[in-house]
């Protein structure tokens, strides 16, 4: 996600990160023999020294329905992985490597923690596999795939694909997609309100609808505009916004429901 990249870039450009003193320890550790007990000590120093990084990333994802302590723990786990896998001789600095790694770990946690009812892991994975296959096939076909095309591509039975698609309905829309994007996309999409306005001209419930649309979060409004005023398909919107088609579908359903509720409230 672009967000990840920009954080990494920021860290590369900023000369004073507060972690410079730790960098030489990676070379020291790499130079030691696999079995050298000094490695463990260096590893501990590196993990402890970079803890504020994990806390910082965890903080970015807080207030989104997952307890802060859980996030710190998950981010720390990601940090440990990053320390273990980092190869200083590859030419990148540790932060550019660690930030996406830790964020990836937190993201996975959100993905697993945000199913609104208990869904077996097998189904979650099936659903994720279908999501990935769907994005790939959409690119190739120039349209959304059918269940039979997904089944063929993933070497699954059609019943399994149905099952995986249905599992997506249990997915709570508070997912990482959502946690990540509040401001991420807004610059390119800020113009949509005026356009919606023009397109709604002549709609008889325009007056009660307009404030409801105005109150929608930027991204929901954008998706609504792209689907109903620019007639883009959900798959095209998904590609444009950088989330899955299933997620676009969930957000649209929720947005339309909110608008309907709002209109009803208005009549009373």
């Amino acid at each position: 996600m672009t967000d990840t990249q920009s954080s990494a870039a920021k860290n590369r450009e900023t000369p004073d990160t507060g972690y410079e003193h730790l960098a030489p320890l990676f070379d020291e550790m790499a130079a030691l023999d696999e079995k050298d007990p000094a490695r463990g000590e260096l590893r501990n120093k590196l993990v402890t020294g970079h803890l504020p990084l994990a806390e910082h990333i965890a903080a970015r994802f807080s207030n989104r329905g997952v307890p802060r302590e859980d996030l710190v723990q998950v981010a720390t786990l990601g940090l440990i992985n990053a320390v273990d896998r980092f190869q200083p001789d590859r030419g990148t600095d540790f932060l550019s490597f660690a930030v996406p790694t830790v964020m990836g770990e937190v993201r996975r946690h959100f993905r697993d923690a945000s199913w609104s009812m208990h869904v077996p892991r097998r189904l979650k994975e099936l659903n994720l596999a279908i999501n990935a296959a769907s994005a790939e096939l959409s690119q190739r076909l120039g349209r959304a795939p059918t269940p039979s095309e997904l089944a063929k591509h993933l070497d699954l039975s059609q019943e399994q694909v149905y099952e995986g698609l249905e599992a997506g309905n249990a997915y709570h829309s508070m997912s990482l997609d959502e946690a990540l994007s509040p401001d991420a996309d807004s610059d390119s999409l800020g113009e949509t309100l005026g356009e919606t306005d023009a397109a709604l001209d002549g709609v008889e419930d325009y007056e009660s609808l307009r404030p409801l649309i105005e109150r929608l979060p930027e991204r929901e409004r954008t998706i609504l505009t792209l689907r109903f005023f620019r007639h883009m398909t959900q798959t095209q919107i998904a590609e444009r916004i950088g989330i899955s088609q299933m997620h676009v579908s969930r957000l649209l359903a929720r947005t339309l429901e909110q608008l309907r509720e709002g209109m009803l409230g208005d009549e009373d």
Partner: protein
Amino acid sequence: MSVGDGDGSPDEIELRLGAELTNLPIIRSLTSSIAMRADFDLDAIADLKLAVDEACSTLITRAAPDAALRCMFTVSKDEIRFVVSIRSTDDSTPSSDTFGWRVLTTLTDHASSWVEPVNGQHQVHIEVAKRRADGTAA
């Protein structure tokens, strides 16, 4: 599965349930199941679900007390047709100048509505049809 008319055509699925918004997930999940099994593409499946949601919500708000929502799906080679109707005290057809109607026409290939008198009240219908996308074989 057709229970209404007794002429159990293999392509027809009928659902009759209380006109409550809380029943929408049932209709939604049936819609999804029908469209998946007809091997519509994921966009068409999602669009049909949203359209069925919209059509049913519109009628539920016009329901006479204790009226049942009657949903009928007809699956053919090229399209899925959905007709929903409700008994209402209101004899006006749902307006085609609302945002809700625009939602229906954007999401489907056909949308229409009509009202017929039934025992001093009115049966309000909405029909939508979603065609199979080009390139997806039946």
